[in-house]
C-alpha cells in the first residue's frame, strides 16, 4: 500500500501513514484554511487501510496545536479508525500542556478505541 507522507508547514501537520513499516503519525500544528480538504486524503487512506490492516496498529497523535475546524476532522479520523482491529491511539502532549491532555481525554470519550497518554 502506498505511503502517505505530508511535510508539516506552519499551518498544517506532518503526516506519515506507512503500512509496511507500521508508522501512523499526525504531528505538529493543524490550522489549515480548509480542514475538510486537508484531511480528505488521510480519511481516504485509512478507508483503504481498514480493508486489510496490520495485525495491530498504534496510531500516534503528537499535536502541538489544532484549531476547532481541525478538531472536527480529528474526530472524523478517530471515528474512521474505530472499526479497525487491534487499534490503539497514542496521544502525546507536552508535559505542561493540560489543554492538549484534556483534548485527548475528550476524544477518548467520543470514540470506542483505547487511548494511551504519553508526554514529550
Amino acid at each position, binding site marked *: 500500500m502506498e505511503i502517505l507522507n505530508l511535510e508539516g508547514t506552519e499551518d498544517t501537520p506532518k503526516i506519515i501513514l506507512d503500512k509496511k513499516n507500521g508508522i501512523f503519525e499526525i504531528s505538529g500544528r493543524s490550522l489549515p484554511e480548509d480542514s475538510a480538504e486537508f484531511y480528505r486524503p488521510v480519511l481516504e487512506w485509512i478507508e483503504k487501510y481498514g480493508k486489510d490492516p496490520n495485525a495491530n496498529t498504534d496510531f500516534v497523535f503528537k499535536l502541538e*496545536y489544532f484549531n*476547532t475546524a481541525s478538531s*472536527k*476532522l480529528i474526530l472524523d479520523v478517530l471515528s474512521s479508525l474505530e472499526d479497525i482491529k487491534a487499534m490503539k491511539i497514542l496521544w502525546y502532549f507536552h508535559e505542561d500542556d493540560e*489543554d492538549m491532555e484534556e483534548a485527548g481525554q*475528550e476524544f477518548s470519550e*467520543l470514540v470506542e478505541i483505547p487511548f494511551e497518554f504519553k508526554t514529550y
Partner: protein
Amino acid sequence: MNFIYDLHRTMMSQNLILVYQGDFTQESTKSILSMAERNLDSSGEDSSIKRKVFNVMVEALQNIVKHSDELIDGEMRSHAAIFLIGKEANRYSIMSGNPVRKSNIPGLHKKLDQINGLDKDGLKELYKEIIKNTTISDKGGAGLGFVDMARKSGGKLEFEFPEMSSDYCFFCLKVNVPRETE
C-alpha cells in the same frame, strides 16, 4: 499628521501590543500569528499562557476570515476588519472588530449569550455536543470557535454591536486570557 501621534498614544494608553487593520485572509492570519508569537516568546511568557493566547487568536482570526460580512455601501465595498492584542499586568486581551449584517446579529447574540451562561463543565458538554453532531460548513467552520475561546479564556466573552449604518453593525469581541496560572 497629529493623528499618528494620537493613534500611538491610544495604543499606549490601551496597552495594545499589536494592531492590524485590513483584509483578513489565511495568509495574513499566519503573518499575524507569527508576529504575535515572536512577541510572546521574546517577552518570556509562560508557555501554557502563550498557548492559550495563540489558541484564542487563531479562532478570532479565522472567525473574521470566514464570517466577516462584506460591507456594501453604494459603490463602496470593503472587507476591512480590525484585530488587536492588549497586554496588561494580569491578562492578555484578544480583540476583534468586523462588520456584520444586522440580520445576522440575533443568531450571533443568542450563541454568545448561551456560551456566557455556561460554566466550565457546561462549556465542555456543549463542545462535545457540537463536535459530535456538526459538519464542516461551506465556510469551513465547525461552529466551535466561540466555545473554544470561552474555554481557553476561563471568563466571559465580551461583545458589543455599535451601529455602522442602516444595514450593518460592527461586531466587537474581547476575550481575556489571565496571565496568572491557576
